[in-house]
């Protein structure tokens, strides 16, 4: 347990200091600072709509600390938790408390997109601190007025969908209708898909934007044109199941493609009549449960060992556990590189972060000039296993996906309701 190690470490440090002070009065403050604990504030949504995801994000961040035995560069790691409810104003209040009241050295967080933009804006008022993203994936965070001390080691919504466009064309889909929730994250997801799909000659005649948490999809289902080959459904877990039920009731038969958070366990456990038609559904995301890389398997095993289902963990780490783990691991790896030295307004540390090549269970991650991750995306397909259960398999692994999605910086436009378009 992290609490136990903390106690032990405190004792050890206490003894260290006493022995040190007794043997040499010349033990300078620098030497002391090397042994002093490094305080890392972690912000996740422990309340509100993403409370479950936030809790798993905390587990991911904690796992990265546990893997180091709670110590980095000889300094004990102290994790200070903070909570928000996916509202940006609450997130900024929580971060301000971490920075100004709890006096943490680094902040890892927040979880959701709007929060990320707000915390990035706040980070500009604290130029001597370093902020590392948690799970938030809004494109604008690192594209519009990026902050020199805000780093993001996870890829974002548009990057997660790279590769899906090509997979759709390979499956023979030429015309696709988009059904997605009406806010920034799905905009990015749809852009990630469409920029590739349109380039390869695909057409998207209709985009239906539905409210977040909507219950009734009948008007959307009525608008599905006869001549589309497939539907791209970018809806969160429960919304996706609602949509599936209603689409089945309406007698729909178009094949589906899913967003990064659409094809979740909820959807795979779907028991309706259309269950078999889910086989062949393709989607893309920053990770895949079924990826068989050795590092990934080790990571999953480590997560399962530390957070068994009986203790509240998931059977397999969620997306939020992975992204928080990624960002916390980056924070600690860079700290190790500078030997725990955060002096001089953390300038050296930020330098190390910018140049970091992060070895992740899913592949190598490095940063672009806006301090945004360039990483790996997985394209997956739903298949039926020998027991008849639905599961996913990795179709393709795309490395070095950057935020520009292969476009030039000048011609790149952020995703929105109307961008991109290829009717």
């Amino acid at each position: 347990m992290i609490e136990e190690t903390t106690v032990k470490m405190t004792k050890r440090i206490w003894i260290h200091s006493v022995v040190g002070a007794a043997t040499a009065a010349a033990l300078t403050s620098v030497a002391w600072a090397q042994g002093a604990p490094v305080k890392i504030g972690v912000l996740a949504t422990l309340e509100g709509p993403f409370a479950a995801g936030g809790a798993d994000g905390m587990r991911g961040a904690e796992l990265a600390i546990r893997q180091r035995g709670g110590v980095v560069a000889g300094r004990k790691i102290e994790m200070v938790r903070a909570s928000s409810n996916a509202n940006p104003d609450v997130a900024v209040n929580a971060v301000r408390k971490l920075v100004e009241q709890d006096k943490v050295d680094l902040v890892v967080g927040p979880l959701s997109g709007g929060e990320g933009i707000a915390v990035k804006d706040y980070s500009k008022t604290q130029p001597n601190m370093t902020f590392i993203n948690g799970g938030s994936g809004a494109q604008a965070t690192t594209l519009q007025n990026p902050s020199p001390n805000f780093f993001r080691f996870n890829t974002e919504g548009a990057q997660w969908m790279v590769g899906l466009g090509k997979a759709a064309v390979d499956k023979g889909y030429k015309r696709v209708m988009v059904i997605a929730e009406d806010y920034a994250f799905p905009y990015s997801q749809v852009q990630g898909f469409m920029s590739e799909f349109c380039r390869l000659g695909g057409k998207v005649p209709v985009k239906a934007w539905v409210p977040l948490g909507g219950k009734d999809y009948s008007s959307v289902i009525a608008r599905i044109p006869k001549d589309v080959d497939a539907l791209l459904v970018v809806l969160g877990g429960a919304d996706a199941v609602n949509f599936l039920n209603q689409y089945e009731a309406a007698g729909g038969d178009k094949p589906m493609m899913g967003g990064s958070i659409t094809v979740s366990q909820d959807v795979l456990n779907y028991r309706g009549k259309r269950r078999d038609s889910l086989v062949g559904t393709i989607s893309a995301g920053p990770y895949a449960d079924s990826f068989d890389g050795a590092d990934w398997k080790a990571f999953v095993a480590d997560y399962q060992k530390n957070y068994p289902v009986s203790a509240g963990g998931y059977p397999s780490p969620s997306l939020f556990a992975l992204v928080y783990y990624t960002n916390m691991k980056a924070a600690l790896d860079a700290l190790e590189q500078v030997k725990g030295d955060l002096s001089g307004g953390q300038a050296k540390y930020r330098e190390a972060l910018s140049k970091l090549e992060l070895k992740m269970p899913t592949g190598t991650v490095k940063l672009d000039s806006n301090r945004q991750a360039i990483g790996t995306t997985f394209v997956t397909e739903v298949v039926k296993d020998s027991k008849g259960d639905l599961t996913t398999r990795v179709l393709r692994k795309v490395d070095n996906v950057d935020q520009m999605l292969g476009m030039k910086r000048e011609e790149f436009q952020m995703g929105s309701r109307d961008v991109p378009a290829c009717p």
Partner: protein
Amino acid sequence: MSAAQWRRAMNGGLRHAAGSSGQPPVRVQASAVASGAAAVDPYADSDAPRWLKFLWRTLSARHVLTFGLALVFPFVATPFFTFQVAAQALVLGLIALSLTFLGGYGGIVSLAQMSVAGMAGYALAILGASSTPISLDWPWWLAVIFAVLIATVCATVIGWLSVRTEGIYTIMITLAFGVAFYYLALQNYTLFNGFQGFQKVYPPHVLGVNWRDPLPFYFLSLFWAMAGYFAVKWIVRTPFGVALQGVRDNPRRMAALGFNVVAHRVAAYAVAGFMAAIGGVLMVWYNGLITPGSVNTGWQINILVIAVLGGMRHPIGAFLGAIIFVLLQTFAIDLIDRERFNLVIGVVFLAIVLFSPDGLLGLWAKLRRRFGSDPSVTSPSHRQ
């Protein structure tokens, strides 16, 4: 009977029967005695300006003490406490004060006060400057004036539409307005920018001062909080305020006496809306952004929680409630290092309301009665 006569009658009645004015005259004498300066009101018969008379009658030693503490506080406390705890409490207190005024003196419990504040905030973000292209970039003072104006008009319209309801129905209809506004802001993209709202809505740099720095912003909030506080204290002693309390206590009788009950209530909504609008402008400047999350049902209820927590009998209750609320929101997570810290907040709220239905003010009155200094000069328990 004219309003002035009514007011005299009310005040006269209070001396004997502990009626229901905001400021019973008994306390005026008490404070004069306490200060030791003079036992009688020196301005009673003089031609001194009315505001001086008002100040003399209203101010007492504890006002001066509180004001002194509020002035010294930011120089002793850390910037964090000044900005996030104190300034935020003052801003939320001001919005809750508008509800205390409506509820405590008008008998109207409106859940739409946070929405009115949010309307001012959105209007400011749309008319003024933000990082969203929708904003019209008007000069800040023009944007502020129009924001407050728009929100006050909206509050008046809400009041006009819900004025014929009573009690729980008022709560329901104002809740409905609040929820409607939340969904409008959430789903409209041409004006409200939907889910993302507006970022970077900062207070201006005026007179070479960055008003978002902790110290200037604290004093800005303190100024408006005090302005709201004294405005309420003043209004409840004006003919309008006294008539409003009459409407609260017995609307049919007031109507029989020739008072326009509906007009008084709508006017109360307008006054409260004006206060909430100023609070809303400060709130946006405090957060630096506004999103639908700032006006959701949770926040509508939080304002009611703040008002009830502090006590609705006196305008200071709103600020006491806000301080407790902000302290809990900020520090509860340190008390219990789990995902359960909201439980602490809930338990404290429950305890306060359980042990004192009148909030902190009621608790204070109870304590004073028990360890009572001098029962003859303290005000009766049923003062409102």
